[in-house]
């Protein structure tokens, strides 16, 4: 039977559905979640689609169990994903740290909604950007991608799976209710045109005592379960073989640094941005749904003869500071646009401030995307 994983074609599709299709195209075999607005359509679609390709979606008793069950399946060698919104991420936080600590490939989709707390579920905000970065205890690095359109929801879900597998780490998709519920054209390429990757694993029959399955800055082969590797997996401080060490502080130092360096060392290849700022005096920096308003405003400004450009961050974490520096060195004014009170702004400002003036522009109302005319007025002011 021909696999029904990749439904190649042109569609008018909701962002959340495109996300589910992206997961299938990337090779997702197992998913779990708990119902929550505005992410539910992804779970619904996966529940409908995964069994037909030999996979399964499980609705768990809560979000903690949802991420727990996918981490378990990942250790059994499956490509996995969970989908939720901010309240679910809050519940998952400890498990996300566990997944980082034992280097588990998994994709976590956060379709962000009006927050804090139960907030306003059907409204998109970008309020969980720093939560994704720092939600679990301790020093660690995370990868997070920010889609701006239903097409991105497909494309970057595939990217997220590839990053999760390549770097053996949780990868966030930080969408929001606007992008998740938006319907636009989505093109699903032919299966052979979609690049997918799978984690490194030790060769079959490797002597378990020789396996160094953890804490390699260039990503250790994953001693997945069920193959006789006799893996000892603990999130407590451990060495390259997985052996626990709760006494020697130099062991903790290695645990912390190597986990972080595994991501930071590969920052350049993880970073995805869209640069459109050649010759611009004013550069609008944004991500996610807001990047659409930024692009519209830049077009208006150019039509009016103003030297405006954009830098869109697809990769929010690890923070692409070199991209910000490169942009700021060419610009006079940097305007940061976010649908929140300024979550990425301090990071962007820290990188850009040595080169250009930096300001922050929130939308008039948190939860409503910026009016391009408002952005245009700010560009004019910056150039005055």
């Amino acid at each position, binding site marked *: 039977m021909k696999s029904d994983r990749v439904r190649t074609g042109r569609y008018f599709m909701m962002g959340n559905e495109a996300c589910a299709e992206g997961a299938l195209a990337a090779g997702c075999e197992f998913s779990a979640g708990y119902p929550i607005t505005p992410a539910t359509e992804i779970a619904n679609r996966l529940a409908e689609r995964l069994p037909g390709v030999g996979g399964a979606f499980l609705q768990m008793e809560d979000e903690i169990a949802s991420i727990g069950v996918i981490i378990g399946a990942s250790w059994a060698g499956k490509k996995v994903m969970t989908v939720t919104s901010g309240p679910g991420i809050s519940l998952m936080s400890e498990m996300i740290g566990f997944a980082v600590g*034992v280097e588990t490939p998994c994709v976590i989709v956060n379709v962000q909604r009006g927050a804090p707390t139960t907030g306003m579920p059907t409204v998109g905000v970008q309020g969980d950007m720093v939560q994704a970065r720092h939600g679990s205890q301790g020093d660690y690095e995370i990868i997070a991608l920010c889609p701006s359109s239903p097409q991105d929801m497909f494309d970057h879900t595939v990217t997220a799976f590839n990053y999760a597998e390549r770097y053996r780490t949780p990868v966030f998709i930080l969408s929001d209710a606007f992008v998740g519920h938006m319907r636009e054209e989505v093109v699903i390429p032919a299966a052979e045109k979609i690049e997918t990757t799978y984690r490194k694993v030790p060769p079959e029959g490797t002597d378990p005592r020789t396996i160094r399955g953890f804490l390699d800055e260039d990503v250790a082969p994953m001693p997945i*379960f069920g193959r006789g590797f006799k893996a000892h997996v603990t999130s407590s401080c451990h060495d390259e073989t997985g052996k626990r060490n709760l006494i020697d502080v130099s062991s903790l130092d290695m645990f912390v640094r190597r986990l972080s360096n595994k991501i930071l060392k590969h920052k350049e290849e993880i970073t995805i941005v869209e640069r459109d700022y050649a010759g611009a005096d004013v550069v609008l920096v944004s991500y996610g749904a807001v990047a659409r308003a930024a692009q519209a405003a830049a077009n208006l400004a150019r039509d009016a003869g103003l030297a405006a450009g954009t830098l869109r961050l697809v990769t929010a974490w690890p923070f692409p500071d070199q991209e910000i520096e490169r942009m700021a060195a060419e610009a006079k004014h940097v305007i940061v646009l976010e649908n929140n009170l300024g979550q990425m702004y301090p990071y962007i400002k820290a990188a850009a401030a040595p080169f250009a003036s930096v300001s922050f522009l929130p939308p008039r109302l948190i939860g409503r995307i910026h009016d391009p005319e408002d952005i245009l007025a700010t560009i004019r002011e910056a150039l005055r």
Partner: protein
Amino acid sequence: MSQVVHPLHKFFRPSVSSTTNCAGCGNGIVTQSILRAIDELRMDMDAFVFVSGIGCAAWIPSPLFNADVLHSIHGRPIPLALGLKVALPGKKVMVVSGDGDLTAIGGNHLIHAARRNVEMTVICVNNKIYGMTGGQAGPTTPAGVRTTTTPFGAFENTFDISRLVIGAGASFVACWTTVHARQLTQSIKKAINKKGFAFIEVQSQCPVQFGRKSGMSGSVQMMEDYRARSIRVEKAAGLSEEERAKKIVVGELVDVEKPEMIEEIERMKARAAGRQQ
């Protein structure tokens, strides 16, 4: 002179040379019962996946057992075990953890796994206290016991763990104490081969924390108390709730057949594939 090697030593991870258990801890008896059961079934450690949470009992398989072992975070071994079982249906999945891990912080996962009747063995070592953190009260600590968080005596009602899991729908439930090592071993063998959620509560002595706090002199006295208070389930039927509360009802409490979740997932997949053809 030939070296004497314990017959269960073959199951130990080669890099492990010591135990973290306190002297007199019941963990050693539970460890032997698990490994004897595997040995008597003539099974290989590679047939198993072990998962544990946080607490003294969680250190039974981790790092000691020479198998795939996932030592997870507090309260969450069961969701991880479920994910492993879904992805590796041919492997035997065993969770070993304590009463605090499985019934307090992880209680929700325990009852839902029992309801789902997903095939796995869960061994709950019930020492009625938080041992690793220095003797705090839990949902199993009897009323009146002075712990570090109940200095004037525990004042909450307790869980009867086995009855909780029976009520949630498990298809196999047994309860023993560390004086019942042989019976425990036989029940673990049945649990390993059970097509369904198999739960075994083992009441186990913690002389260092629970023993001191409940006025017991040590593990021998605690085990004698287990022996004195244990009553076989067949003989417990006529007891009033009041009489029952003073006893430990031991034996195989439930052993029934009912739909098992992994098999139901496979049926669901077949329905999905059929519908699409």
